[in-house]
Structures are given as C-alpha cells and as structure tokens.
C-alpha cells in the first residue's frame, strides 16, 4: 500500500518536472545554453563593475577578479560571502556530530592494522599531502580549490589514522586550526570592508591573469578555506572513531 502511494507521488512529480523541462521556455534545451545575456556572461568577462577589457591569458592585467578559473572566480570572488555561509554550514554539521558523540576520551578498539597498510600509507601520505596543498594553492588557475584540496588532506589524515591507531587521540591541534582559519577568513573580509568599503573586497590590484600570485584575495581566502575544511573533516572522522560516553 505504501509503495503504491509512493509510486503515485513519484509519478505526479515526474510528470510535473518533465513537462517543466521539456516544453517551456524557462529552461534552455539540453546542450543549447547560451552564455550571452545571462548573468554568467559578466562573471566570465569580469565586467560586473562596468570595466570592459579583452582577456588574454598571461597578458591582461588588473582585471576585476583576475582568476583564470571562472568557477573559482565565482565561488571565492563574486560569491565569496555565500562561501562564508557554506563554510558555516559545514562547521555546524561538524559541531552537530561532535555534540552527539559527547565529550568522551574513549576510542573504539580495533585490531592491529596489516603490514601492507602500515608501510603503504607511509609511502602514499607525503604524495597525498603535497597534491592536496597543490590543489589548494592552484585553485584559481586549474580545476580544484580549497574544498577539494581540504578533502584530500582529510583523506590523508584518515589513511594515517587507519594505519596508526594512536594517531587520532594524540592530535589535538585540528580544532584550534579550524577556529583560527575561520576567524582569519572573516578578518580578511572585515579588512576589505574597512579599507575599501565592501566585505571581502580586493585590497590590492589583482595582477596578471594566469600567474600563481594573482587574483587578489582568492588564493589567500582559498588557503584558509582549505585548512578549515581539512581540519573540519578530520574532526568529523575522529568523532566517528570515538566510543559513546556512558550516560
């Protein structure tokens, strides 16, 4: 009976969504999207403040955002305040997980990890960390950014805690790193507001597009987002490895 009701609900939903997608003019047809005349056009051409300039890789200087990766330009540039909210959502979920497990110092007992895991993790760990930092610092030039690199660093920590059972109880610095990098993110925004008049506004010129030290605040902001996401995800992993406190 319940399944019939669920199927009926889904059929109604499918009919409504598919008619909305297939025959109306609200959404473009699949593969026919035109970027011109949409808001993304200003994000790609970087002329939201009205300055029009031809963009050439490695030559054009002092663009509005200056990021070669248009997605990073949106996430950490035009919509950086939105990203602050996103980081807050991640923080609240980490806080929820941490509150539900309670303040306990007892950890789940696990059997000794195998030889291949112990030796192999030592070989892979430096590569994982270096690639994670590379992805964070090159977020404005290539695919990647703070969230992706932070997840990579957290996966390196997960590998380390799987091979060495004493690792997670020993490390206490991640909570402090998380709070510190979140605070610095807000402080960078406030400095932009005091000096230039808008929250998270670029203080200096953005430099030549395509260079490592370019794009104004984006690499700085993404570095702290990467640190925050990495330490937050590590905190969630270590919370899942704890045993529940006896109430």
């Amino acid at each position, binding site marked *: 009976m*319940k*399944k019939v009701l*669920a199927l009926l*609900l*889904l059929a109604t*939903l*499918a009919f409504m*969504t*598919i008619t909305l*997608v*297939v025959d109306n003019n609200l*959404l*473009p047809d*699949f*593969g*026919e*999207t*035109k*970027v011109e005349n*949409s*808001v*993304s056009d200003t*994000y*790609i*051409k970087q002329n939201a403040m009205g300055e029009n300039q031809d*963009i050439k*890789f*490695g030559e054009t200087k002092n663009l509005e955002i200056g990021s*070669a*990766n*248009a*997605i990073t*330009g*949106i*996430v950490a540039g035009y*919509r950086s305040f*939105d*990203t602050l909210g*996103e980081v807050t*959502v*991640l923080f*609240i*979920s*980490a806080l*929820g*997980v941490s509150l*539900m*497990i309670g303040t306990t110092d007892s950890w789940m007992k696990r059997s000794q990890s195998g030889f291949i895991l112990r030796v192999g993790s030592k070989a892979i760990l430096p590569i994982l960390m270096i690639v994670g930092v590379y992805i964070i610092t090159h977020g404005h*030039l*290539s*695919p990647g*950014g703070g*969230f992706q690199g932070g997840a990579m660093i957290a996966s390196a920590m997960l590998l380390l805690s799987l091979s060495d059972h004493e690792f997670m109880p020993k490390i206490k610095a991640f909570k402090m790193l998380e709070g510190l990098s979140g605070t610095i993110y807000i402080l960078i925004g406030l400095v932009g507001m005091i000096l230039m008049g808008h929250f998270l506004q670029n203080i200096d010129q953005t430099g030549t*597009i*395509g260079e490592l030290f370019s794009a104004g605040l984006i690499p700085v902001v993404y570095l702290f987002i990467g640190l925050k*996401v990495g330490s937050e995800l590590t905190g*969630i992993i270590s*919370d*899942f490895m704890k045993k*529940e406190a006896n109430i």
Partner: protein
Amino acid sequence: MINLAAIVLMLLGLYALLTTKHIIKMVVGLNVFEVGLNLFVITIGFNKDGIAPILTGSNSIKDFVDPLPQAIVLTAIVIGFGITAVALMVARKIHEQYGTYDINEIGGK
C-alpha cells in the same frame, strides 16, 4: 537527454527514501537524490561545443560553458556532505540505543 536521466535518478532516490525501512539505506537514498539533483543543475549550463570554463594559453573565453551552475553545485556538494555526516551520526546513536537500524522495531519503546 542527460537532464531527463538526472530527473529519473532523483526520483529513484526519493522512492528509496519513501519506501525503505533501513536507516542506512535511507541515507543512501538521500545521497542518490542529491547526486541526481546536482547532475540536473550541471546540465542546465551545458553547451554542445563548450569547454570547461578555465582560461589557459590555448583557448578563449568565448567557448566556455556556463560556470554559474557548476559553482552552485560545488556549494551543494559540501552541504550534502554535512547532511550525510549528521545523518550517519544519528543512525549510529539510534543503533546504540535500540540495537537496530529498522525503523519498525524502534517504535513503541
């Protein structure tokens, strides 16, 4: 027609969410729903001759696909991760208290 396939994936996840009795399977259904939704939002920005919106030395900004849906999906993925973490922790607390993941066996205690 990947956008219609994404809608089907979304409905599949919703069906799993509505009918299953197992909490972990509900979390899996929620994730399938979320993946379908993200895929659908990305297909809105897709362009047949488009390339990834990253400027390098050998392309120009005229060929880019729409970057805005991709940026929004990046936000949605992170929030989906947070939801999954909290949901798994709730499932673990339920299992510690009642010894089962089945929602039928929890009721009445």
